[in-house]
């Protein structure tokens, strides 16, 4: 499991540091070509020496045993109160326990796999599309979040007035307003949302289009120099 995560992260160009306690697993991982450090996971001193509050961006707790994971998450949370911790759980009950222990995000691989199989049975078209869009096989669509900096041309505008989906080849899902928590406000929400600084716009589209939007949003104050309009904008209500 951990090897798979490490491989994915490395493919994305992230810097990964792997640690483990068990000599057998260390051997196995080294044979598969990973660099793994031996760290006693129950020793707070050793854990701190990894640079938890300075160098580490995200901590993954991917041990095979639920109890071990809970223990590790508690230790790390005690050492680094603000560090995002991602963990996995074998069963539904542990999800809550891990969250209580301080995990930021708990992934339940079996739940997700089960649901994805069900999707394939239930609505194969969407399953195939999601397979490609989210899990990246042959379709270069991506979900991206674009933060709105101060002075951006979208600042103060209503989401539906921007008609981003025709100016850029993008589908706008919604906005996260940091002032109201992390919940995504969907673009279909009947309450029209005025974008302000520090909001995050969530869009799906191709990498280049996302880049173009990102560039235009961060460029401040030049409203007339937004990218070319491809088709006439949709009617604004």
């Amino acid at each position, binding site marked *: 499991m951990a090897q*798979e995560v490490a491989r994915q992260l490395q493919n994305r160009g992230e810097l990964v540091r792997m640690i483990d306690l068990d000599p057998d697993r260390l051997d196995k991982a080294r044979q598969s070509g990973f660099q793994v450090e031996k760290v006693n996971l129950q020793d707070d001193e050793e854990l701190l020496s990894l640079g938890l509050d300075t160098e580490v961006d*995200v901590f993954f707790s991917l041990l095979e045993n639920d109890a071990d994971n809970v223990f590790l998450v508690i230790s790390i949370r005690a050492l680094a109160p603000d560090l995002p911790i991602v963990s996995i759980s074998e069963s539904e009950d542990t999800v809550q326990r891990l969250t209580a222990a301080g995990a930021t995000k708990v992934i339940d691989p*079996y739940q997700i796999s*089960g649901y*994805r199989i069900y999707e394939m049975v239930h609505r194969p078209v969407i399953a195939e599309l999601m397979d490609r869009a989210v899990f990246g096989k042959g379709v270069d669509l991506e979900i991206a979040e674009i933060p709105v900096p101060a002075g951006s041309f979208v600042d103060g505008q209503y989401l539906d007035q921007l008609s981003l989906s025709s100016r850029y080849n993008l*589908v706008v899902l919604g906005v996260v307003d940091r002032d109201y928590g992390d919940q995504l406000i969907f673009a279909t929400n009947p309450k029209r949302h005025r974008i302000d600084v520090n909001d995050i716009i969530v869009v799906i589209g191709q990498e280049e289009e996302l880049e173009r939007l990102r560039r235009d949003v961060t460029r401040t104050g030049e409203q007339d120099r937004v990218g070319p309009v491809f088709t006439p904008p949709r*009617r604004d209500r």
Partner: protein
Amino acid sequence: MKLADLVVRFAYWLEESSRYRRFKQAAYDLLENPHSRIRPYFDLFMMVLVLTSVFILLYDVRHTPEHWAVKFENLVLVVLVLEYLGRFWVYDDIHKHVIEAYEESELVDEPFRLRRAFYQILQAKWTFVSSPMAVIDLLAIMPSYRPLRILRLFVLFRLFKLFRYTQNLQEFGAVLREKKAELLTLLTFLLFILVVGSSAIYLFESSNYGGDIDGFFEGIYWALVTLSTVGYGDITPHSFEGRLVTMVLILSGIGVISFFTSIVVSAFQEKLGEVRERQVCGRLQKLKDYTVICGYGRVGAVVADYLHRDRHPFVIIDENEEAVAAARRANYLAVHGKAQRLGALHRLGVGANACRVLALTGDDVVNVYITLTARQLDSGIEIISRANHHRTVKKLELAGANHAIEPYKIVGLIAGEYIGQPVAFEAIQGILMGDQEIDLEAVRVPPGSWLDGKRVEDAGLGDLRLILFGVITPPERESDHVRHHYDLTSRRFQFNPGPDFVLVGDDLLLVFGHRYSILRLRHKLKL
């Protein structure tokens, strides 16, 4: 040879007549076909009829029969005779024997002899007439013949007839048949004790010597009453020897009864799995397009729960008893067995009514095996398989899986997505997992509906508060109003179509929106 010619011609006429075949099939469905829909109703009707007739016959023992009772008895008689003749008729095809014999004689260039065909027919029908069930059927008709009082005894056969109409009783019989040898041993032992016991008591307690026993038959009666631990006490031993015999008989009686009980119980315990499996298979035969889930572990349980929520029929097979028990507790159809076996999957209807196999065990070797077996049974069935190691994906595809799911890889991908953009990912995951009110759904445009031929802009999706993610069209569709399309298997996904994109019947709209918005769109399309 004119008669033979006529018979052959008539046989061919029957063979060709689709009307005759349909009629015979209907009779077969009614009387014999265990999977036909009408059969249970027929069985129920016959049971009620038989029970009523038995009740009336018993009533007549003390009363003079009423006028309507006689009429009813006659009706029962007619139905029973018709049933017997019907079964006699559908048992096999007479005309086929004639044709077979005729063609055989043609082949070897001999004159066709009616006698041989007739002999074959007689043989085949005799097999029916001499079968136990047919004998019971025939005897059950007897008690309607009033002049002969002894025939009243055969009313019991009407009760035996109930066997025919209840599958459970037949299964009971089948289970006991399995233990024939043990039961036979027991019976021999019982007979031996009975003979010894009744002889002894006759010797010691005969009325000549002041005892209660009047004859040998009474001895047998007493021995059986004692042996079975019933002990009426109407006949009691008085002599010392007689009491000794009684004690021995009581002790061996306990042995016989416990032995008999244990045989029956163990027979049922051994057969319990099979009986259950037969029941499951029986229920599956009435279903269509169901899913076979192999392996009820964590993943299997999640899939089963979702399918159950959607009322999609499925059956579970697992080689672990505990997993099967857990599935049964959840009220799912479940069978204990090894899914990789050809027979097991075949019995579950792979190659017949099943439309999908999910190989979800934790063992990749087993999953590959299941995939291979299922593909061998049915070349068109959809197979989704779980790959616990990345290396297995290739093998599963070679074995014939349509899709392979890698649970561990999914975790990796999710972790990777999460690191880059946690907020966006939470949102999309919420949509994907269906645990939010916002959903991504595919909505088909019915041909001829008001959306057929409309431009996207005029479809009014915005008014319904839906976001159009894209349109799925046939693979060859090109449009100037779509900047990017992606080819899926046999379809094309048109991403973010412009307002002038024209929708055509059978297109699939992929929309994000609140569940109610999607429902409303679906509703509007139905009008």
